[in-house]
């Protein structure tokens, strides 16, 4: 028993490994941290592209990883409200508590859309600060990346230069890619679409697309047959060109609507790690490609 305790204390007292330990709640921020930090960071991602980051359990494995993290990157805007506070509190790690330099909320760096005019749960799963799905607009990665690089430099001053140059290289490449994607996506401007979940306001804002309806009657409420039929009937006049869902959404509502309204169902990766979205670049390559195929 004594020996076990000694080993445990030795483990606890071990100096943190050279790399900055990053705990990212969702894959896109994990990927961005890797782009900026390169070999200087060791990234753990709490969820995958096939999971809904709003409905995750505060699993023991997450608490264990948060325990040793130097930097917690969350989306914020209440996306992780159902589980992240428990992980933070149970971790016994003061560095990643909200308000500390080790807590970085990506949503704080960008302009949020869909800020509700009134807060009432009768309106479904509304977020007081605005829609948290900011990663569907590539321009947001520039703002988030800038803040993130500064934060990483603050936490790990020894490698500050590396983070700054990592971010500069990423930002330059990203800007030229955004131009290319925007050029490719020109035909999508003004196109009317139906979304399964209100997860895409930033994407539509970027490409100038129009959301004419959502299959979910209220955000986070499963589509009912009655509501689906209503959206189908409205589609006669609103004439959407496609119905869009994320890879983690259930396939049935979008497929039902696609068949009924005779429009293609487009499955977008939503985040890094979904099929054909191995990294940030592939995420938007695939997104733009799938949308163009849907026309």
């Amino acid at each position, binding site marked *: 028993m004594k020996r076990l305790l000694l080993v445990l204390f030795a483990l606890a007292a071990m100096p943190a490994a050279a790399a900055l330990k990053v705990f990212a709640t969702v894959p896109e921020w994990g990927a961005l941290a890797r782009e900026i930090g390169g070999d200087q960071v060791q990234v753990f991602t709490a969820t995958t592209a096939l999971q809904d980051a709003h409905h995750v359990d505060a699993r023991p494995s997450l608490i264990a990883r948060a325990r040793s993290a130097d930097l917690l990157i969350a989306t914020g805007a209440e996306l992780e409200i159902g589980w992240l506070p428990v992980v933070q509190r149970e*971790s016994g790690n003061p560095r990643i508590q909200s308000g500390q330099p080790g807590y970085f909320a990506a949503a704080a760096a960008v302009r949020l859309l869909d800020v509700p005019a009134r807060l009432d749960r009768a309106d479904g799963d509304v977020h007081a600060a605005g829609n948290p799905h900011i990663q569907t607009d590539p321009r947001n990665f520039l703002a988030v990346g800038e803040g993130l690089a500064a934060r990483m430099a603050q936490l790990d001053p020894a490698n500050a230069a590396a983070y700054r140059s990592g971010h500069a290289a990423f930002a330059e490449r990203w800007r030229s890619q955004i131009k290319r994607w925007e050029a490719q996506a020109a035909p999508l401007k003004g196109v009317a679409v139906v979304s399964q979940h209100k997860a895409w306001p930033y994407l539509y804002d970027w490409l100038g697309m129009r959301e004419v309806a959502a299959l979910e009657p209220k955000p986070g409420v499963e589509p009912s047959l009655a509501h689906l039929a209503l959206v189908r009937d409205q589609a006669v006049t609103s004439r959407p060109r496609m119905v869009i869902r994320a890879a983690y959404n259930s396939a049935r509502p979008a497929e039902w609507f696609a068949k009924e309204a005779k429009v293609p169902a487009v499955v977008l990766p939503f985040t890094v790690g979904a099929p054909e979205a191995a990294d940030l670049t592939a995420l938007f390559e695939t997104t733009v490609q799938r949308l163009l195929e849907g026309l």
Partner: protein
Amino acid sequence: MNHASIAVLAAFGLLASLPAVAADADLKALREEIAQMKKSYEQRIDALEKRLVDTEKQAIAVRSTAETAASQAQAAQATSMASRQPAAANAFNPEISVILSGMYNNTSQDPRHDPTGVAGRERRIQGLLPSGGEFNPEARAWNLGESELSISANIDPHFRGTFTAAISPANEIGVEEAYIQTLGLDNGIGIKAGRFFSGIGYVNEQHAHTWDFSDASLPYQAFFGPQLGYDGVQLKWVAPTELFLELGAEFGRALSFPANDGERNKNGLLSGSVFAHVGGDIGVANSWRAGASYFATKPHHRTYDDVDGSNTLVTNSFSGKSNTTVLDFVWKWAPEGNATERNFKFQSEWFRRHESGDLTYDVDGVGAPGGPLTDGFRSTQTGFYAQGVWQFMPAWRLGYRYDQLASADASVGLIDRGTLAAADLPILRDYTPKRSTAMVDWSPSEFSRIRLQYARDQTRPGVTDDQVWVHYIMSLGAHGAHKF
């Protein structure tokens, strides 16, 4: 008035006026200085006022630009963050939530009275010393469940506070939890102090509204009646490993059976527990947690009511040592780890309690054999439950639970030595209580749940109680974060 006093007055008047005359030149200089200062301040104030007016004009201009921008943004069906909420003092309001619960119960047996005993004796599980805890359902037909008010917030960068009050259907307010916990300790250490649910086992720490069934499992009812709380302190440590390993220790005034610290008047630690939890993921689809816990207390004159051989109500008591061991396991599965559509949860806990000390029969001396009589008592009691809950489509779940208590392995000195007959301590007669429970529930959102539950309860000899619940549990207010 005499001359002397007039002279004195005149002298005083002269004295009083003297310094004024002397300081006249100084005063003039001072007045000029003040006048200059006043002038310069007036100039400065004028300048400031002018700047203020300019700033206001600019602000109005900015606001109107912002408003134009906002209306443009609205036209584009997008709202910007420009209209942030004002940072008033009430922006520091804590997270407040209320749990509302109510049910309709249908039971084939009277839930309040014991059909196997004397009229007036409360319903209890046969074969072990009664825990005295609350048993659901409390009564037949319509019942209000416990209404729970919970308030929590970070106190400062170092502490967080949580307060939970439970209001019973009988209009009694109880402090369910009221604790502070540390936020700022490093190395995986966390300390909680105040009134809190013990970290032993798996379900013990969970509030009733998060349970998967409408009532506590039999072992929790029998061993902790039905939840172990402390007024004390808890220390937890999370190991710096990828495998989740958490060690914890608690000390304090234990608030429920098998302790009776509430009535104790002594210094010291009173009761204590230690626990260890390990857990992790297997692939993306599976996650698990297992734990072992140990609780030790020394109940002193812990009383319970029973009837003796002549059906007279008597009060008996136990004093001695009571140790409880709990092993728990929980496993969750969801395809690709995405629990929104379908998921499955299995959990099981095993309990063992060992008590040794003295049992006193009839402390008030009202029974037929004539008490009080005291002799040695040793008992080892085990029990377990296992349950599975299957969400087969969004919002809908099915669950089944089986729970059972083993017949106690007891040696009762009063009976073994022939002082009393077995019929004088009827609650200790051997029996194996068991129960099967099935439920289906519907949760249209994270905040509401309506459940239909059926239980076949065989916790009393010769009686099978068919119990049906229709139960709603809803929460309003802050979006709570739930534990694994």
